[in-house]
Every structure is written in C-alpha cells, then in structure tokens.
C-alpha cells in the first residue's frame, strides 16, 4: 500500500463561474473525496488559495499571483492510499476538475522513508 498525491492543475485559475456553478463543483468535489474516503483510502488534502500567491524566479524576482505568464496553476491536491499507481489514476479520473477543458490531474507517489525509491 502506497500513498499518492493527486494534484489538480487548472489551465486558467482566474475564471470566475456563477455562484450556482461554483456550488455544483464544490458538491462534486465533496462527493469525489467522500467516495475515496468511503473506501478508507483518503489520507488528506487541501485547496490552495490564489490569494497571497507568489512566484519566485531564479533571479530572485518575486511576482504576485500564480497567473499571468504561467499557463497552469495548481488548485489543490489530495493524498490517497492505493495499491498501485493504476488505482490512484482511477481515483484521479473521478476528479471534477477534469470537466474543465485543458485541466489535468497529476498523480505522484509519495516517497517512503525506507530507502526504496
């Protein structure tokens, strides 16, 4: 049993939807997480607010916001338990973020502290 991080990537984090649409997305996200939690495979997660986002460049230049010249922003991530990366991918496929055109989910295994990579 490994832990995987499912990272939600938005093509355009600055899009504002209608209040009704936001509520629908939020419900879908809750259902998605609930479905994983029901299998006892949900470890935790968080959304990443766009407020107070900064981008630090290699030249030390700090810019406000996660958008602008960056096409993709990370909206949040959850950590799940899965027997294989395939199972983690199945979880990721259910994320409502994927309804947005251009949005993607990235699945990454969390390194264990047991020397095996």
């Amino acid at each position, binding site marked *: 049993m490994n832990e995987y991080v499912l990272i939600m990537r938005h093509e355009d984090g600055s899009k*504002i*939807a*209608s*209040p*009704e*649409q*936001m*509520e629908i*997305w*939020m*419900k879908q*996200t*809750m259902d998605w*997480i*609930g479905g994983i*939690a029901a299998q006892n495979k*949900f470890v*935790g*997660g*968080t*959304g*990443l*607010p*766009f*407020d107070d986002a900064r981008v630090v460049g290699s030249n030390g230049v700090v810019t406000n916001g996660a958008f602008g010249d960056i096409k993709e922003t990370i*909206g*949040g991530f*959850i950590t799940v338990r899965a027997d294989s990366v395939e199972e983690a991918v199945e979880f990721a496929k259910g994320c409502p973020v994927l309804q947005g055109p251009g949005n993607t989910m990235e699945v990454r295994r969390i390194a264990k502290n047991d020397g095996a990579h």
Partner: protein
Amino acid sequence: MEQTQLIPHLFRTEFRKITAVLCKSFGIENITVAEDIASDTFLSAMEVWPYKGVPPNPAAWLYTVARNKARNMLTRNKVFADKISQELSSDGASKTFEIDLSLQNIADSQLQMLFAICHPTLSVEAQIGLALRILCGFGIDEIATAFISNKDTINKRLYRAKEKLRVNQVAIEFPLQAEIAKRLPAVLTTIYLLFNEGYYSESNNLVLRKDLCYEAMRLAEMLLAYPPADLPQVHALLALMYFHASRFEARLGTTGELILYEDQDETLWDKQLISEGARHLHMASTGAQLSRYHLEAGIAYWHTIKEDTVAKWENILHLFNQLLALQYSPVAALNRTYALAKLRGNEAAIAAAEQLQLNDNPFYFALLGELYRDVDSVLSRQNFTLALGLAKTDADRQQLNRKLSLLV
C-alpha cells in the same frame, strides 16, 4: 469526515445578500467591486470546504470571509479606502470599517437595491438583467441562457446599466414615502417581466426557467415585507404569479413541448400554490385602485377552475374587457376573443377576431384557424398555415403542425 449537508442554491442566495450589503456600504459606483468580493468569497469556500468539511454555519463563515476580504481590499486600495471612509465616517481609519451583515441590514439592502435598479433611466432589459445578477445571484451564463442571448451581449448590457447608475449617482436607500408610489410601478413591471421571462421563455432549460419564476415571486414577497410597499397591487401581482406557477408541471410535456390549457391534466395543478394565490388575491381586494395585476390575477384565478361554465367565461370575458380598456395588448385582445368563442360560439368570435387585424401575429392566425376548425376546414387550414409561416419558436411550430395534421 464529518459533513454538513450543503443547502441547495446556498451560493446564489448568499451572493445576492453579500453583494447588496457591500454595494450599500461602497456606493452604487462600486457595484462591480461588491460582486468580485462575493465571488472571491465562494472561491475561498471551494478551497477549504471540500477538504476540511462544511462549517456548521456556512452563511456565517461566508460573511466572516467576505468581511475580511472587504477590509483587506480597503487597506490595499488606499484611494478606495479614502473615498469610503470619507463617506462613512470622520474617523477615516479603514480598520474600524464594519460591514453590517445583520438580518435587518441584509433585508433592507436588497430592497433598497431593488428600488435603485428600477431607476427610470435604465431600460427595462437592463433592469431585469441587473435584478437577475445582483438580486437573484444568477451568473452571466445563466442570464444569457434565460434571454437566449450570449455572454458578451449580457456583459455589455450590465456594464452599461452599472455605468448609468454610477453617472446618475443613484442612491441605495429607501425612496421617500411620497416617492414610493412613483417608483413602485417600475419595480412591479420588472418583477412581472422577470416572471414572464421564465414562464414564456424560449429557452429549453426548464430548471432555469422555473428558477426565474420563483425568483420573481421571492422579490414580490420581499417587497411585501416592507410595510410602505405592502399594497394591494403587490398582493395582486403575487397572486397572479402563484396561479400561473400552479400549472408549471401540467403545461410542459416530457420533451418540453407546450401543453395547451385545454389539454392539461388538472390533477397536476398545484393546489397549494392555488390556495396561496387565492389568499393574496383576497388581500389585494382592498383600496380604490384597480391595477392590471388585479385583473390579470382574476383571469388567472378563473383559469385554475378547469370546468367550463357560463360563469367562468362570463367572468373571464368581463375581466379582459376591463384589462383592454386599462391597457391594450395584442395577447389580451386574442385571449378576449377566445373567451368570446367559449360564451357566444365560434361564428360570433370569428367576426370579432377579424376586427383585430393583427396580421403579423402568428397567434392571431392560430386563433382564427382554431375558430374556423368546425366551421370551414379550408379557411382553418389557410389560417394555420399562415400562423406556421410567422411562428417564432419550435414549440409553436410543433403545435401548429399537430393542428394541421388533425384537420380533416
């Protein structure tokens, strides 16, 4: 994870409350700022609630966040802060800036916004658009769907409307008692048209159409809760909407096609809404003023009785006569003719119909086709065909084709 159930339409409901209150604090010229803060507040909820669970009191959580966002914006934006603090108080410190999200102020702000939005300088379309956005919490997409329009057009329309409110420095406050009588007709017209937008919309989105009707009814209820606006014609308008809403389920078929009144299954009519309508019609029956809403509510009331009786059609005809005298409309003229046919027979109604000469109106020819059906099938076909050529919606065309196919 412990989960509080999310209330349906919570965001839409809270959007309008937060926007109205902020707008009142910031002044009408900052309506867009108010909308942005409200939208940002829901973004924050989306970033937290799915992972941490819905807070026990979601509305209170949203108000706290909205308040903080408003404060942060005031500290960040000094120009804006100076302007607000000058207007608000003499202490000038934005730290003490408080947004009053008490129930009373939420209710007052929404009502005051309703009067502000119905300002005479705005076109009726702009008033309805703004009402949907600010007072009903609809998104631009939803408004575009309701108006069978597109986002750009709606955005431009709302932008221009907000500009007008800004330029005219429309105050968000209760009109003076003397002003209320002057402003109320525009408010009632907006509510009435909002309801019609949902009831007769050409949009296929049934859920959205019902929402529009219910929002119109909610605004009328809100108006009645304000004593100076608790007037007979407001009750009449609400009664009219209840009566019509009672037939929602019966007037649309499974594929969204329109089912004519004659063919409706009256067991689907909502008795509770009918009795609610009757209650308001009763409350409207005072005072000396007979408004168009009284007459239309009366007509709608008689339509909640399915059985054809002389009394029913006598009353409907009489009400249409009064309505037409008060305010002519082609629809009322055609419906009056229909009532006439019910009472005096088709021959008499044909003679009356031909006086109307509504030669660019598809419903005029549809009515004539209907009246000639058992009198002269050639003329009936001719009129239905003319109607078909003028029909504007798929639902109407479907209806007419069905009528043509039934002709012998």
